[in-house]
């Protein structure tokens, strides 16, 4: 993990000192209590801190969450993506940390493609570079709820300076675009009655497969084969207009447009190159960001 993390950010962030273990976005991928105990021991052997990641869950998955919480040392950081799990983590004597999903933020990967022509001359709203944490009322809510830390992503459009008062951890290089219980990947090989509904049970084909997504709005220079989507500077390929269903985009190998990634039930973007360096620099310069969570691979 350390080696790949250093690859991602050129070693700029120093050696890892904490293990994040668990999953944020799918209840079917939760580790067992035994896995949690083993991971804890692994971290303790190295003198690392330990943070438990937990997903949003239905009632049937609250007991496994309880088992995980019971496998933790008192006062362990528990990242929550579910208000009910927050309630239980607090009751179990742990330190609730607000996950990046519950810290609402505009993470639409199309925002870098939005130009003045789309907004008819209006400035992009300031809310695109702020999230829940930008609200003093939300910060007061966090305090009342015993939340000691907030996790967030750095969106592709960047973030305004964060207010002081709540320590922040930033995930790099992957950011969550959207997540839900309807899971295309889980539907793989299933009969019609079980396709595209939240799975009650899952064989987790996402452990084997990753889906890359390519779309016409992720390009601004389509060349002669393109027609304007909205106005100059934003294009959709003509072939795509004529046939929206398949084989409409340029050859994948020759297409420099960014891909987005689907792992199981969640879409992610990946910060790369300059965007990653800028995000890391922003995090290092921010007085409230005191931790970077390096993701050596898609966090699912």
């Amino acid at each position, binding site marked *: 993990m350390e080696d790949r993390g250093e690859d991602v950010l050129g070693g700029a962030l120093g050696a890892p000192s904490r293990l994040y273990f668990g999953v944020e976005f799918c209840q079917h991928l939760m580790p067992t209590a035994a896995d949690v105990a083993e991971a804890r021991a692994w971290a303790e052997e190295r003198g690392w801190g330990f943070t438990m990641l937990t997903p949003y869950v239905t*009632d049937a998955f609250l007991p496994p969450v309880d088992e995980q919480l019971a496998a933790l040392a008192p006062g362990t950081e528990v990242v929550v993506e579910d208000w009910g799990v927050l309630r239980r983590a607090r009751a179990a004597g742990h330190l609730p940390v607000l996950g990046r999903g519950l810290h609402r933020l505009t993470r639409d990967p199309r925002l870098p493609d939005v130009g003045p022509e789309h907004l008819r001359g209006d400035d992009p709203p300031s809310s695109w570079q702020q999230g829940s944490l930008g609200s003093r009322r939300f910060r007061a809510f966090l305090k009342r709820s015993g939340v000691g830390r907030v996790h967030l992503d750095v969106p592709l459009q960047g973030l305004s300076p964060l207010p002081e008062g709540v320590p922040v951890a930033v995930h790099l290089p992957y950011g969550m675009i959207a997540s839900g219980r309807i899971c295309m990947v889980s539907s793989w090989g299933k009969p019609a009655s079980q396709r595209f509904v939240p799975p009650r049970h899952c064989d987790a084909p996402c452990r084997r497969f990753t889906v890359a997504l390519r779309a016409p709005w992720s390009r601004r220079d389509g060349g002669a084969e393109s027609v304007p989507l909205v106005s100059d500077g934003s294009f959709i390929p003509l072939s795509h207009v004529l046939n929206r269903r398949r084989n409409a985009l340029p050859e994948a190998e020759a297409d420099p447009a960014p891909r987005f990634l689907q792992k199981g039930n969640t879409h992610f973007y990946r910060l790369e190159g300059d965007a990653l360096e800028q995000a890391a620099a922003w995090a290092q310069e921010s007085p409230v960001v005191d931790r970077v969570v390096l993701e050596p691979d898609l966090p699912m």
Partner: protein
Amino acid sequence: MNILSPVGNPDEVAPLVEAGADELYAGLFPQGWYERWGRGSWPNRRGPGPANVETMDDLGRLADAAHKGKVPLFVAFNQQYYPDDQADFLLDIADQALARGLVDAFIVTDPGMIAALKEAGATVFASTVAVALNADSARFLSELGADRIILSRHLHLAEIKELAEAAPDLDLEVFLMNDNCYFEEGFCSTTHSMPGFGVYCMTPWELQVTEDETGGGITEPEERARWDFLVEEHREFLRHLGSRGHGEGKLKMPLGPCGLCAIPELMDLGIHSGKIVGREANLFRKIRSVQAVRYIRDAYRDSGDMRAAKGQAVEMRGDGPGCSSGYSCYYRSARDRSLIPLPPRPRGPRRPRSR
């Protein structure tokens, strides 16, 4: 179970109440919002136009009409978050509306906003965007001040049952008609407020599936066929998330996502309200949706015959292929296959079979 209908303007109130609406909800896109925050930001989950009224006077007329019809009016302040300047702006409007008795409840996502509105003396419903998937989440939002919890669109009936039984004292609301989200709405960080870009989850993606172990494409022919089939079916599923025209039944019902045949089970669970989505929809769609829900609700209430009520739901919808596929269902497990008149869909490639 109450029928909660969207409403877009005062003229819609009387026909919707006559059709059977027990509660109404609206949006407010206040004057001054555009001037301050431009076209890229909305005060609620719907954009300007027929989904929202714009002035306090319009809101007053809407409230007067609703209250004259003896139904409460709720207003959505349901964005995922509001920076301080936007929250201050909306809370000032909320104070005015409360002082004039215009709004009976606000539908809210942001926990800080829920607390602020409770302090202002408002009744507050936790939006589905707040995400309550289990009884503890619902309890948490209730302790925060929410007087009603609007559940996720994506809960199975069995999951709603578990939740309702674990929190019998909470007022719960569920989705019944017209629009679905692909993602859990509270965990979707994309925005609909980008002119010209459409809706993220409806993007006609080119999908490239790779095996993690090799980093390459799928080489095993049977697995490849399964993925090809799934991607085609997925496109078909996306088509069912929104409006698909009108049904073949007598009502010529608008065909969107639907929970009609689940109404009997939801009534048995003691669900307080069933929501019809679509503030921006035309009045015909709203009225037909209210009528359909009312018909099934009253039929089951009066007869107690669940199977008959489900049969009426299928007949009224007049969408045999849609009911058969289940892709338009909010609560797919509620379907009674013996009541669905058509055989499985004849379209599309066959699902590859295991060897």
